[in-house]
């Protein structure tokens, strides 16, 4: 996903060229999975495999078309991308996902909050992490207690409820 800014038009767009085989691979997976179903389908020609087959054919055709447009450099020009902030935010989301069951909603979401703010330039984690956890805890009280959403509780939540 590294954006290669191309100043000259009509040159093969390499990053976009990668999209075509990805689409083709998805089409192949859908086709293969539908083939597995077809064995079980009944006398009529229409079964659970019909639509997946159509979707797979459509994706394969679009893959060819994408390869063609990418080769001609028809994709819109992309601006340069900063990877670092993206990595921090993805780390925050992954952190929340892994911590959720053990640490509970407030702490896990606080981590997400702090790392997202970090990605956007607030580097002082010793400030943003407590803010994030406190804010998430308030959200937990409102949504988990009053609106009765089932948010996973951890040590912090058990301390109060």
């Amino acid at each position, binding site marked *: 996903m590294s954006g290669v800014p191309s100043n000259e038009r009509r040159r093969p767009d390499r990053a976009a060229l990668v999209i075509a085989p990805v689409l083709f691979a*998805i089409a192949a997976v859908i086709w293969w999975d539908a083939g597995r179903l077809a064995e079980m389908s009944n006398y009529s020609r229409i079964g659970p495999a019909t639509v997946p087959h159509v979707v797979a054919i459509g994706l394969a055709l679009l893959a060819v078309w994408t390869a063609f447009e990418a080769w001609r450099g028809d994709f819109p020009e992309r601006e340069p991308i*900063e990877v670092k902030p993206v990595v921090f*935010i993805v780390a925050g*989301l992954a952190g929340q996902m892994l911590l959720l069951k053990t640490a509970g909603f407030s702490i896990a979401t606080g981590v997400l909050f702090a790392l997202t*703010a970090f990605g956007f330039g607030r580097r002082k984690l010793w400030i943003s992490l407590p803010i994030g956890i406190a804010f998430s805890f308030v959200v937990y009280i409102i*949504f988990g207690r009053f609106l009765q*959403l089932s948010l996973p509780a951890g040590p912090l939540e058990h301390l109060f409820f």
Partner: protein
Amino acid sequence: MGTFEFLLQGVTIAAQPMNLLYALIGVTLGTAVGVLPGIGPALTVALLLPVTYKLDPAGSLIMFAGIYYGGMYGGSTTSILLNTPGESASVVTALEGNKMARAGRGGPALATAAIGSFVAGLIATLCLAFIAPFVVKFALSFGPREYFALMVLAFVTVSAAFGDSTLRGLTALFVGLSLAVIGIDQQTGQARLSFGIPDLLDGIEVTTLAVAMFAIGETLYVACQGDRIPDKVEAVKGSIWMSAQDWARSWKPWLRGTFIGFPIGAMPAGGADIASFLSYSTEKQFSSHKEEFGKGAIEGVAGPEAANNASAAGTLVPLLSLGLPTTATAAIMLAGFQQYGLQPGPLLFATNPQLVWGLIASLLIANFMLLVLNLPLIGLWVKLLTIPKPWLYAGILLFATLGTIGANPSVFELGMLLVFGLLGFAMRIFGYPIAPVVVGLILGPMAEQQLRRALAISQGDVSALFLSPIAAVLFVLAILAVVVPLILRARGKGEVLSQFAANED
């Protein structure tokens, strides 16, 4: 009973104290979230869907409608005071509105947007009430093949007809359709594309996909651009009231915008952005102050904002009467209905008239609340715009994940949220539209069901699909909607279409 009696009955339901409270909470939340930059109506509705999980269907749908309308109002505030290009439906409002704000006329700009939205919302909701029953009557004669044809048309208009590339629109649609295949087949009970993972048997949740693609995709996209775009919130100086001249210049654009916006929303022809662009160019032609356009002409705010809201009400016509979502926002609203086991469509008008008419009446009430909420309290909403970016996006992600955790607190679901977020991010980078993915996911299974019913009736004969006159006309329209834009783009007239890029609403 005629429409009037039904509507009156609806008003009595909507005016019950609890329902009024739900509507008030809905419009307040909708405005608050809609004001935040980078959040359009589709995401507002997706984010707030879980808030309504534990309410009864009527109350929650009323709150939902309030959120929808509130999100539309809130978006205009953002585009006037904070020049945020990239947000589809409000790009036009930003053109003139932000110029007005810079010239110290932010108050009248906000006022004409709010009053215009009110006028348009009122007229369009009444149109909805009177037109929907006719569509329902017409739809009763529809069989599976007509429904299938209608859905194909909706697929095509959402993905290929507008936007800057037929290829990328169709690709986005097929990504959505591929995701729609995942899960247990409705008719034979066989698992498709689930790879033995039990979490996938229920299919992909529309709200998970929408929140991931809109909220996480957008956050990552904004983050990757660094500090390139400086945000400047224009302060509202002077009076927020419109002068006599402002009124004189606004009322015609409001009405014109309404009558441009409503039909566009009501036909499966794309969303609010198209309506607002059309209204903008109309106002530019009709205006006696042409020289002001581009420098802050009030007509350029009044018309598009009215068109914007009228088309939002318009999209409820196919949604309520046919069960057909034609925009990303409508797709998420459909998911909201489905969480209560309600399927919008002709039958819902027959089996559950109190609910449908209560909903329509509550839209009228929500509209009044929004006018009150937006004009005197505007200062409060403006404060929301001054939240620094790091806290804002941290908060957006908090609420984005909150919805998913509340619906299904599993690591797997959060993993999907992350994967689809990255997908949405990649699609944004390469210029793919997001709305077709969401619409494909929710409409895909419905289209498949109709197709298989139609083919079961014809005993597998595909040509029977085209033999009904209504279906044949719809298929021809669908083909035209793909082919005509392709020709236009090939001839270098694509700019007009790319302006109409239907992204979020």
